[in-house]
C-alpha cells in the first residue's frame, strides 16, 4: 500500500479516533441515563394520565418529548426502556460471547470430532437468518424478558465461535504454545493462559457489533409483540404502539426509533474503531 502523506495520516487518525470517542461518549451517556433512570425522570413510565394524552414534543416543558396515547411521559418511557434494552443487549451478548468463545476455542484447539460437530452446528445456525432463528425460538419459549435474553444468547454465539476457533487454530502451532504444551502444561492452562488472552481484542470488537445486533433484535421482537411484555416500556413496543396514531402523532413511533438508532450507531462506531485499532480482519460486515 502507498504511504499516505503525513498530514493526512494524522488527520484520518484523528478522525477515526474521533468517531470512536463519539461512540463511547454516546453509549456511556445512554447507559448512565438507563442506570440512574429514576434520577433523570419526573414521571412514572407506566402510570397513565389521560388529561395530558398525546402532547406533542416541546409543547409542555414538563413533557419534553411529549406524551403517548395514555398520557405517559415519552422521555420517562424512553429512559426506563433503555434500562430494559441495555440489560437485554448486554446480558445476551455476554451469554453468546461466553458460549461461543468456549466452543470455538475448544473446537479449534482440540480439533477432531468435537471440531467437526461445532463447525457443523455453526453452518446450520448460519443457514437461517438471525432474526428468523430468533423468532422461531421465541415462538417455542414464549415472550418475556428472560426468554428474550435466553433466545438471543443461544442464537448469537456463532460469530464468536468462528473467531475464537480460527484464533485457536492458528495459535495452536505457534512456537510458544507448542513449547508450553511440550513442557507439560495442561490443555486448560494453555487455553486460558496462552490462547484466550490473545483472542480478547477480536472478541471485544465482535461483541460491540453483536451488542448492536442484539439491541435491534430485541426491539424487533418487542415490536412484533414477542419480546418484552407491556406495560413495561420497551423501545420496540413503543414504536409498535405508535403505529395506531401515525396519522396524528408522529413522535410516538419516531422518537423511540431515534433512540435505537443512537445506540446501534454508537456501538457500531466503537466496533469500527476497535477493529481499526487491532487492524485485523474479522468476518463481520
Amino acid at each position, binding site marked *: *500500500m*502507498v504511504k499516505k502523506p503525513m498530514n*493526512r495520516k494524522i*488527520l*484520518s487518525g484523528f478522525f477515526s479516533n474521533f468517531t470512536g470517542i463519539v461512540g463511547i461518549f454516546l453509549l456511556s451517556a445512554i447507559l448512565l441515563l438507563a442506570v440512574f433512570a429514576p434520577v433523570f425522570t419526573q414521571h412514572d413510565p407506566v402510570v397513565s394520565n389521560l388529561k395530558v394524552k398525546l402532547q406533542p414534543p416541546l409543547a409542555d416543558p414538563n413533557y419534553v418529548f411529549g406524551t403517548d396515547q395514555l398520557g405517559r411521559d415519552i422521555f420517562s418511557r424512553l429512559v426506563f426502556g433503555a434500562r430494559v434494552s441495555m440489560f437485554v443487549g448486554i446480558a445476551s451478548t455476554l451469554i453468546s460471547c461466553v458460549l461461543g468463545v468456549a466452543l470455538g476455542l475448544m473446537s479449534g484447539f482440540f480439533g477432531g470430532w468435537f471440531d467437526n460437530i461445532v463447525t*457443523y*452446528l455453526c*453452518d*446450520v445456525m*448460519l*443457514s*437461517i*437468518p*438471525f*432474526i*428468523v*432463528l430468533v*423468532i*422461531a*425460538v*421465541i*415462538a*417455542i*419459549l414464549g415472550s418475556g424478558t428472560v426468554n428474550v435474553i435466553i433466545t438471543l444468547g443461544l442464537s448469537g454465539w456463532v460469530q464468536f465461535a468462528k473467531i475464537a476457533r480460527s484464533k485457536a487454530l492458528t495459535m495452536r502451532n505457534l512456537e510458544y504454545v507448542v513449547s508450553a504444551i511440550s513442557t507439560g502444561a495442561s490443555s486448560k492452562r494453555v487455553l486460558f493462559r496462552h490462547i484466550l488472552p490473545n483472542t480478547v481484542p477480536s472478541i471485544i470488537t465482535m461483541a460491540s457489533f453483536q451488542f*448492536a445486533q442484539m439491541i*435491534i433484535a430485541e*426491539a*424487533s421482537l418487542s*415490536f*412484533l*409483540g*414477542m419480546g418484552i411484555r407491556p406495560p413495561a416500556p420497551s423501545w*420496540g413496543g413503543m*414504536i409498535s404502539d*405508535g*403505529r395506531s396514531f*401515525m*396519522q396524528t402523532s*408522529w413522535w410516538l*413511533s*419516531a422518537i*423511540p*426509533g431515534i433512540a*435505537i*438508532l443512537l445506540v*446501534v*450507531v454508537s456501538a*457500531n*462506531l466503537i466496533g469500527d474503531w476497535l477493529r481499526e485499532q487491532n487492524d485485523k480482519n474479522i468476518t463481520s*460486515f
Partner: protein
Amino acid sequence: MSKRYLVRRLIQIPFTILGILTIIFFLMRLSGDPATLFASQNASVEDLAAIRERMGFNDPLIVQYGRFLLDILRGDFGNSLRYDQSAFWLIARRIPATLKLAFASLLFSVLIGVPVGVVSALKRDSFIDKLSMLFVLIGQGAPVFWIGIMFIMIFSLQLKWFPASGDGSFKHIILPSFTLGLFFAARIARFTRSSIIEVKHEHYIRTAQYKGLTPKGVFYKHIAKNAAIPVITIIGLSLPSLIGGAVMVESIFAWPGFAGFIVTAVSNRDYPVVQSGVLFMAIFVAIINLLVDVIYCLLDPRITYD
C-alpha cells in the same frame, strides 16, 4: 471450479436441513409440553391429552424423532392449526411474492449503494464523502421496521404518494423494497468505497496512470473491474440477511410473502406453519449461497475451492 466441489456443496444442503430439523425438534421438546404448541389457546386438559395421543408425543423420543423426519421427507409438514390446510402449501404459494420483494430490494440497493460508494471513494474526505458515510451509518444503524414506519408516515400518510400496504400495482412495491434495500444499500456503499480506495493504491493503477491513460480510462478499465469482486462478495454474503429483513418488512407492509407469514403464524400460535416457514427459509439460503459460490468462480477464475 471443480465439479467435485459443487457436488460436495450439493450434498451438504440436506445435512444442513437435517441439522435445522433436529434443532427444531429438540427445542420443541425442551420447551416443556410440545402439545401446547399444537393446541389452540383455550384448549382443555382433555384436548391436550388427545393431541398428545394423536401426534404420538407419548412415544419414546427417538421414535418421535424418526417419525418427525419421515413425515417431512414425505413432504408432510402437518396442517395449519388456523386454516386447516397443508402448512407446506400455505408457505409455498407465498414464495413468489417474497422473491419479487427481494429482487426489487436488491436492485434498488445496488443502484443506490454502488454509485454512492464510487463517488465517495473518488472524492475521498470531501463533503460528499462525509455525507455518504453518514448515510451508511444511519442505513446500517436504523432498525428496518422503524424505517418502514417512517416511510409509511411520510410517503403514504402525509404525501400520499404510495400505498401503505399490500401488493397489486408497481406503486405497492416501492416503499417495502426501499425499506428493505436501505440497509443493504448502506452496506454496499461502504464496501464499494473501501474496495475502490484499496484498489486505487495498487501498483498496476499507478502504471496505468503513468502510461497516460485518462482518469476515466483508469477507472473503468482497472479500478472498477478489480474493485467489483469484493463488492459482489459482500452482496452474496448479505443475501441471507436480506431475506431475514423481509420478515419484518413484509409484516409491516402486509406484503403477501412467506417471510412475513412466519410472523403471522407465530401470533396465530400456528406452529406447523412456523416450522415450514423456517425450513423454507433455510433451503432458500442454502440455494442462494450455492449460487453465489458459482457466480464468484465464473467472475474470478483465480478462486478455487479445493
